[in-house]
């Protein structure tokens, strides 16, 4: 039962977005998140929606699949929305008991809520279209220049690789331990939440022990295969910047130009008049 949990949320596909260089996708995602904070009005969001829509269409990931990712943070969105709606001072629209809803509040609530939604969609597009292994390669390659500053780029990537490899193994192990405990009469499904939480302790202890045992075995196996850190290592998958990546950069530039133009140009024009 526990093995049914899907790991990560990669949506398999061969679209152009899937095949982009993971480093570029990482950078563009960060840039996109920053760009959301540049936008000041709904016209700007128009540009954002157009861009997001274009990427989603190009990635061929079904929209429903993407929106499902929003479910997880639905509560956060609602929370942000209500906080903004009730807590902003300004022109009063109506009151509900002690709570006042202002015009500015309503505006802010919608605006902030949308910003969160775009943020989640934008970043989930990265994980939906990039295999975790490739993402790891991308992160390692991007962090490499920071090695001089003491950022352990290779080590981080290796840790992520191993974590990805052993998630299914540890899930299996958990399943095995749970079944062993259930066979001896353990009950994980009834009782108060505290009772249930406490019944997890006999699972966690053996799980930790076996995780350490696996780590020890694995470390020995890695050493036996000549692992000695990132120095002097070659890679099976070399990251290459291709034509399609250049096209993506160009399109991204257009997007940022539009956003910046939308944000700053009117201000200059007004300044000229007054």
């Amino acid at each position, binding site marked *: 039962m526990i093995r049914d949990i899907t790991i990560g949320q990669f949506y398999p596909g061969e679209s152009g977005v899937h095949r982009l260089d993971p480093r570029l996708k990482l950078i563009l995602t960060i840039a996109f998140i920053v760009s959301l904070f540049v936008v000041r009005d709904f016209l700007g969001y128009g540009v954002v929606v157009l861009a997001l829509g274009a990427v989603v269409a190009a990635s061929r990931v079904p929209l429903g699949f993407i929106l499902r990712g929003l479910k997880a943070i639905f509560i956060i969105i609602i929370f942000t929305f209500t906080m903004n709606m009730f807590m902003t001072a300004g022109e009063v629209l109506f009151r509900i008991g002690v709570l006042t809803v202002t015009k500015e509040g309503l505006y802010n609530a919608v605006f902030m809520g949308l910003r969160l939604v775009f943020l989640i969609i934008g970043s989930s597009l990265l994980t939906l279209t990039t295999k975790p*292994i490739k993402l790891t390669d991308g992160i390692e390659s991007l962090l490499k220049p920071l090695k001089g500053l003491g950022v352990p780029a290779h080590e981080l990537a290796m840790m992520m690789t191993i974590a990805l490899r052993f998630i299914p193994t540890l899930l299996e192990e958990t399943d095995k331990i749970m079944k062993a405990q259930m066979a001896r009469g353990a009950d994980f499904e009834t009782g108060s939440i505290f009772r249930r939480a406490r019944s997890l302790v006999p699972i966690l202890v053996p799980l930790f022990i076996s995780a350490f045992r696996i780590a020890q075995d694995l470390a020995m196996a890695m050493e036996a*295969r000549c692992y000695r850190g990132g120095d002097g290592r070659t890679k099976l998958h070399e990251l290459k910047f291709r034509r399609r990546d250049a096209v993506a950069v160009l399109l991204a530039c257009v997007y940022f130009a539009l956003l910046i133009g939308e944000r700053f140009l009117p201000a200059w024009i007004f300044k000229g008049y007054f």
Partner: protein
Amino acid sequence: MGKDIIVLDALTYEYRKEDEEQPVKALDGVSLSVAEGSFTAVLGKNGSGKSTLAKNINALLLPSGGAVYVDGFNTADEAHVWEIRQRAGMVFQNPDNQLVSAIVEDDVAFGPENLGVATEEIKLRIERSLKSVGMYEFRKKGPHMLSGGQKQRVAIAGVIAMRPKCVIFDEPTAMLDPKGREEVMDVIRMLHGEGVTIVLITHFMEEAVHADRVVILDDGRVALDGTPEEVFLEMEAIREMALDAPLVVELADRLRRRGWDVPPVIKMEEMVEYLCR
């Protein structure tokens, strides 16, 4: 046969148990030479020191006394530890805990990547080693989707992609079902056929009959050493060490005691041939 690729010279390995004053001797003055291209099986019951022996050959453990030479390199010499590990590959017992990557072909690439092999060459080696263990069509799969025997074959592919001169198998079939055991033994025999030196650590006597030399360890010492035919004729000694002889050997021994003149046979086919004569 050519020169000796592995030389153990009075190898002693001690370790300290918690709350015990005296160190325990896992290996006590073991001297052994393994010829290049040979197939040696090392047998022994639990605690006989056979796994410690394997780890000493790969420089994962260093001798407390005596010395170990692999292809002329002393394992105690830190400068050559990577040459030693490249030449003497190692396959471990647990098929789950020795695969590093979530994708089969990436895992096979792990060793060559560590050795600094060029990308194009790595791709060639992946293809060749996965094909030779019959796992090429699984190259894009995750290890958790494979059976124990298949995982162990991937682990072997990962070792042979490093182009070792010899491979040490540390109870590679102990955690497998009979089918997986068969698969792995077939791959080991195939490797031996290709000229790779094999050291097979095992407690399955049946696996040892395929070797051309059998070494039985008992309490950290070499108890018996010879061809399988020679060793398995020492039934008394084998029983004394609480080991089970292969079924065929046991049968031949019992027939002999009943007055039959059975020749020294160790393989099932030979026995069948004798009985049907």
